[in-house]
């Protein structure tokens, strides 16, 4: 039984939904790299990210935002992909620090990836090595804007281009023993 709205009410519902999504960002901080240390100050009294409705989520099932806080080694990437796929749509990814953008200081490492958005769709990058909490919050506000515009469609992108992403992922993860998620 599909509930059908007329156009006007659909718009209103969408607006409410977007507003709610924008104001309620539950963050799954995947604590890789040095960025993990920047998250606690962001969340606690000094910078108080809860003002923006940002708060931590314990598990990927509950979370909206996946925060990749730094470089990802091949081993961690595998876990990140799994975690990302366990999250519920709509879901957003924030790449955090230059390591996620272009490899940063690990550009010639034999074991870290250098381009996060080749493996999972990233909505917002926050540059810096490391970005300070102010920058992090600004990144989140940017994400809120993207959500409000309805452009944060990472999950859909991932779903549509799954083969491409899989090919990229499997290029470096040789032993692909992950369960099938029926995308």
């Amino acid at each position, binding site marked *: 039984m599909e509930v059908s709205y007329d156009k006007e009410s659909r718009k209103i519902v969408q607006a409410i939904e977007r507003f*709610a999504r924008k*104001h309620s960002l539950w963050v799954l901080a995947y604590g890789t790299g040095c960025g993990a240390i920047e998250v606690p100050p962001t969340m606690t009294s000094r910078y108080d990210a809860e003002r923006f409705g940002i708060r931590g989520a314990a*598990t990927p099932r*509950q979370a909206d935002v996946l925060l990749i806080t730094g470089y990802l080694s091949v081993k961690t990437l595998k876990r990140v992909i799994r975690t990302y796929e366990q999250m519920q749509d709509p879901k957003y990814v924030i790449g955090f620090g230059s390591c996620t953008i272009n490899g940063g200081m690990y550009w010639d490492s034999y074991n870290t990836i250098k381009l996060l958005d080749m493996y999972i769709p990233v909505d917002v990058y926050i540059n810096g090595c490391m970005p300070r909490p102010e920058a992090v919050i600004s990144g989140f506000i940017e994400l809120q804007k993207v959500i409000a515009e309805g452009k944060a469609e990472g999950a859909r992108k991932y779903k549509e281009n799954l083969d491409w992403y899989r090919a990229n992922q499997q290029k470096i993860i040789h032993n692909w023993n992950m369960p099938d998620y029926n995308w």
Partner: protein
Amino acid sequence: MDSSTWLKILGYIITPITAFVVGVTYGGIVRVITARVQNRFGPPITQNFWDIIKLYSKKTAVHHGLMQHWGPVFAITASVTSLFFIPVLKDSPLWLNNSFNGDIIFLLYMMVFGSLGMALGAGQTGNPNSAIGVARGLALMVGYEVPFVLALVAIMIQFKTTSIAELMAVQDGFSNWLIFQSPFAFIAAILAFLGMMHYAPFDVTFAPAEIASGPASEFGGKYLALMQTSGSIFTFAKLVLFTDIFLGGAGDLVTLIVKTFLLYMIPVLTGIVNPRYRTEQAITFFWKWPTVFGIIAILIVVL
């Protein structure tokens, strides 16, 4: 159908909605207060509404089987049913619902219904954290039920009734409130209430940093939303129950809200400033002083 039937049906619709709104708003206020205590600004009071709407608006939902699918339904059934069997406002046909068909003992068991349903749902996910949370939660329940039941027994014996409505009728006038008539029962009950609300120091069931929010760890989207809805309603239901029993109930909504809010602040403020007990510590806590208070309450009634 005559007007009273319509009034009753209206009551069935209005009561849960009110409970939801009040419960969620309380949740928001709690978050603000917590933030202020921690020297933060805190989210807007409406934050919990946005959270719940967002969870409802999630596009996908994943479950691990029928029991997880129905787990939140069990929870909401328990909370709404309990609410329906608690007289919300004194002498108001709109707010009394089914309260004459059940009583305190029924409510004690009805409250478990949801926990057990949720526990079954959490169990089916296969997540060890959920099961650990459930084991802790059930054990904790055995702990806090003891002083709670002692307090209730003291009151039930004193007034020779198990009906909440009759207990409310007993407490007309400020000085007749049971909090003054049998203070020890109130102390035992309120200490049990701390455990019942799962705020620190008795938040070992959900312990986010430890077992990834325990039973809820595999719930997301609509399931989590329904759980939070039922949680809000349940919080309100428990508060109303305590108000009815100890604070003389309420004749109008404003009084009710004031009384429930004040009552709610006890576990909340305790929770903010306390660390966490381990399960067996919590159980032994409940079986020590609160139980003693409960026994004193009974002895006072008996002697």
